[in-house]
């Protein structure tokens, strides 16, 4: 039995504690918004927040997530999260959309800690998230706009 706090809710799951968090979310808790892309920490598609920091759910044993605040795309909230989602709509970022939960989670985590990221900061924070549709340019623009909004600049 593993106890988890996901999106503010306490959940209990009967799984082998070495099971990666990704599969607990997807197969045991039906939280399918977090996606599988590589299973090896190489693509960022499975990014969630663990205690506010981005984490790759595909290589994180569920036991290591116990007792921490886990947040997934389904439960993303807060000023940074909302600003990111708004900017994603405005820039029409997603193409196929499959990588985007991970992109949004990485972007929100970046802006939580830094509301004035440089282009380099953005590239550094986001280069672990692959997008096969190559929406990188719009992601960069959307993050810059979301940051400006968080700082109270522009509209």
């Amino acid at each position, binding site marked *: 039995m593993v106890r988890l706090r996901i999106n503010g809710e306490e959940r209990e799951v009967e799984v082998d504690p070495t099971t990666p968090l990704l599969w607990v979310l997807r197969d045991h808790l039906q939280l399918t918004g977090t996606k599988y892309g590589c299973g090896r920490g190489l693509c960022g598609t499975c990014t969630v927040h663990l205690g506010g920091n981005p984490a790759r759910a595909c290589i994180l044993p569920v036991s290591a997530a116990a007792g921490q605040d886990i947040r997934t795309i389904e439960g993303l909230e807060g000023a940074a999260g909302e600003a990111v989602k708004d900017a994603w*709509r405005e820039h029409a970022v997603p193409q196929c959309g*499959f990588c985007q939960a991970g992109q949004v989670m990485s972007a929100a985590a970046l802006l939580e800690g830094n509301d004035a990221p440089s282009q380099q900061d953005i590239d550094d924070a986001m280069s672990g998230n*692959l997008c096969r549709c190559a929406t990188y340019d719009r992601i960069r623009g959307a993050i810059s706009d979301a940051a400006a909004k968080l700082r109270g600049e522009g509209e």
Partner: protein
Amino acid sequence: MTKSTTIERRSFLRMLAGGGLALAFGTQAGSAALLSCQDVREAEAFVPELWVTLLPSGEVKIVAHRSEMGTGIATSLPMVVADEMEADWARVTIEQAPGDARYGDQNTDGSRSVRQFYEIMRQVGAAMRQMLEQAAANRWGVPVSECKAQLHEVVHTSGKKLGYGELATEAGQLEKPAESELVFKKPSERRYQGKGVPIRDMEGILDGTAQYGADVRIDGMKYAVIARPPVLGATPTSFDRAAAEAIPGVEQVLEMDAHAPAQAPGFNPLGGVAVIASSTWAAMQGREALAVKWDLGPNAAAGTESQMEMLRASSRENGEIARKRGNAVKAIADAPDDKVIRAEYEAPYLAHASMEPPCAVAHVTEEGCHCWAPTQNPQAAQGTVAQVLNLPPNQVRVDVTLLGGGFGRKSKPDYVAEAAVLSKKIGAPVQVFWSREDDIRHDYYHSVSAMQLEAALGEDNFPTAWRARSSFPAIGTSFNPAADRGSGFELDLGFKDVPWDLPHIQVESGKSSGVVRVGWLRSVCNIFHAFAAHSFADELAQAAGMDSLEFLRKLIGPPRKIDLAKDDAQYSNYGEPIDKHPIDTGRMLAVLNRAAEMSGWGRRQLAPNRGVGIAVHRSFLAYVANVVEVEVAPNGRLSIERVDIACDAGTVLHEERVRGQMSGGVLFGLSAALHGNITVRDGAVVQSNFHDYPLLRMSEAPKEINVEILPSDAPPSGVGEAGTPPAAPALANAIYAASGHRLRRLPISGQNLAHG
């Protein structure tokens, strides 16, 4: 805002029976003939020809019958109906169609959706609008000319109005207008077409509820992974069933009975050993424990090294002639040695690697088989499943989920058939999960190629003759063991149709054979053909001592329409008539000049170690030019600074999506050029995941990307693939300009670019 649902046959029939269906429009199977609500009511069963229904509530349901994988097609085509119908987009629901031949073509591949269905969608929308106007005119007893549809209402010249919902039932009793009576909105009257509307799935993507293939959950569903033959045609000789079954959650270990043949595997499941479990993770652990031993079969010695040797050799021999203008062979033979340029180009196998690997759910019951899959081609999936289960196709239903990328891989339904076979065996619904390793190792690969190009130069060092030969395993090798060279259709993709204004042109195909499954990948053979043709053109520019842009303008020659039939060439023109979609060098020059202007070509002083490269290419009936600017440090470190893209795609439905396809297509091409490389050793694919099959990351993406879409009222062309072909040659030409290294082999990474 619209949301997406799937069409439920039963609820539709209920709607028909209950008289809730007020006005409906469709087209007759396989033709554009309109079908009215009466025809629909008289039809006894499910009527998939139905594109749009208007309910008395005013709600409009429009069918998306093509697969959504990022191009925006499931938004764009319904948007055309809504626009032409004067419907309020906020009251439109989009329904995703299952696979059914009565929709006409559903294979979302070859950048054809808009080309094939734009007119039909407009007709359906116009017919709906006209019938609603007529119904209002009848109600009011006024001439229809005094009634005008306007945003979900019909408005009379006196100012009185009736909502669409109120008119639906009466409109549904009317005769359908004849095709000749349809009147279309003027472009200036369009509300949505052109600038577009938000994509159907935006909110679902942002809140995690959008449903992709792997997100399908059915009551009682099991999870399966399969240990597939590492080599095409290999068969398992032993495996450790007990070890796999000892993993908690593993329920069954099953051998797949049939396996794809060692040659021409088609769409058949590859075979192997399946592990069925209560979760994906347990199934994967179970597969690890299986430790399958294989009889590797007849392909055990196959490898890309020996294959490349063979392809290179064949690209040096006379091939089968696919286009002949003048006498290039003689012109080259007659030219003095210092007036002949010859170069060999090659490009490797590529994997699709969409972010979502293939996956499928199937549930076989006594009634038949229900599948849910991220498929580009639900009808092929339906057919293949029917075949492997020995069922009539009408007992197989394939529902299309969102696709996490497709790029051609997901039009091959082998993975859907796997799920169907397993569900039948275990008597329960099952999801077949493909890991990234499964995806990279069991793809239908973009073909490897070797090309030889030759040119004869005139007195002024401008070319007079072009001879090009391409050797690559054909897509046909996946279906026909006798396919021993690239087909005419594949040579049409950017090789036969070079638009050069030269007196002597000869294009040939060389002999080949394959070692892995070959399939189509975003822009197909255009990738290597454009790389070779436009890099070689740049070599010729240097030989002529000309600026690359100026040289290209001269090589393409004056604005004209090229008739390949005059050069004894059969040309398939992406399935479209050549008079409707000619090879128009005027449009080609326009995008070339625009991209050059955007980039400041020749006007901008470049920083040290920088270089720019240019290429223009027509594919899928669209014209795309791009200018790539790179920096190559003296130590060889490469960075892509900027890309300027100009495109003419004819009439554009959804500009924002088209821009996305252009920049995405170009970056897809850059990713392949930089990194893409699948190799085969001892019959098996060597690469397995993103560490050894890297994709372009944000850190490597061009720092600046500019896209311009030239205004055009030409018929719509394809946009999903056309951005990709010119990317690699423009990049390689830029690297040459910056470093002096002429790259004739892909991928670029790993090659030494040090200079200075």
